[in-house]
């Protein structure tokens, strides 16, 4: 199988791309991690109205492609919408990309890239 034990053995962390409230909450739960300097990297990105799409895109690529210690990437659904193409194209099992609802944007199962596949498979 493509996902051998080595690929997910040392994936321990969760990463977040979300609005301020979601990130704060999740950090309070204790998922925040900053790697040791000199190349300190945070595993979370706060997105507000002023954040560029390219920056979100870059963070998403970093979390999914470059960092090998992240097991799950949580991303707010309304932010995932902005980089929908990247999210839909990312089909590797690791890390798992999970679209989560945010306070201001209730969860819409129709937009979820995985649920879309589920629906398509069962012809609903």
């Amino acid at each position, binding site marked *: *199988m*493509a*996902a051998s*034990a080595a690929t*997910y*053995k040392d*994936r*321990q*962390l*969760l990463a977040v791309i979300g609005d*301020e*409230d*979601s*990130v*704060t*909450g*999740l*950090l*309070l*739960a*204790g*998922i*925040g*991690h*900053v790697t040791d300097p000199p190349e300190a990297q*945070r*595993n*979370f990105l*706060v997105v507000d109205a002023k954040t560029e799409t390219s920056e979100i895109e870059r963070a998403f690529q970093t979390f999914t492609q470059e960092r090998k210690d992240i*097991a*799950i990437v*949580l991303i707010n659904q309304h932010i995932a919408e902005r980089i929908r193409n990247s999210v839909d194209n990312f*089909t*590797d*099992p*690791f890390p*798992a990309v*999970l679209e*989560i*609802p*945010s*306070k201001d944007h*209730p*969860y819409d*199962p129709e937009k*979820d890239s*995985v*649920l879309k*596949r*589920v629906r398509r*498979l*069962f012809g609903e």
Partner: protein
Amino acid sequence: MSGAVGREPVFPTRQSLGLMKSKLKGAETGHSLLKRKSEALTKRFREITRRIDEAKQKMGRVMQIAAFSLAEVSYAVGGDIGYQVQESAKQARFRVRAKHENVSGVFLPQFESYTKDGINDFALTGLGKGGQQIQRCRETYARAVETLVELASLQTAFLILDEVIKVVNRRVNAIEHVIIPRTENTIKYINSELDELDREEFYRLKKVSNKKQRDNAAADAEILAARQKKKEAELQAQKSTPAQEATGATDATEAAEATEEAAEPEEPEPVDVLGEQEDNDVIF
């Protein structure tokens, strides 16, 4: 013979027939095994799909509750704690580890959350006021993240299973629609070629035995004819020898008596004798 799938490039021999037969048998066994594997995976897949749907709904509710508790916090603290929280996050307390579960030879990862003790980045958060709310908020969010982790493992399993099922089904179809018909075609071809060779061989043997019979008959006839002729010749010889001896004797006496007189009448006689001998030679 060579339908849409063709046949394998083999020589039609008994050995390759045996090979093809065992190959067909292997393909059928493999087909049934893969089919069963695909069914087991599909069963699991459907279960996971159903659970994903449920978990997504649950996640919606849980995140709503969590967001509400965060709102409580900002009300209690009376300001935004976001910045402070982001800055004080250093080490992840909440981590996941992956175990794997084996479903018909496919390893499905299962995330399991655990908290690393001794790390508390937010000891000072809410020290002034709202500490209780913050504590509750942390617990709520921890539960929410557990739900998310569960969902993530379901989703990962979903993605992996999806891929594996596709591969397995492709194999099943390839065996069912390409390998088995092709092997059957090859067996049919080898059988027909072997039959053809058998018929050819049979015909050849028949021809050879026919030819032998004919040759024998001819040889017999010749021998018979030869014997016949010999008999006839012997008979003829018996009849002609007395006369020949008489003439020979007279000739000899005549020759002895009158060699000087004339050579003319003598000459035809030896010619006759030679002619007789020649005939004898031919017969024997």
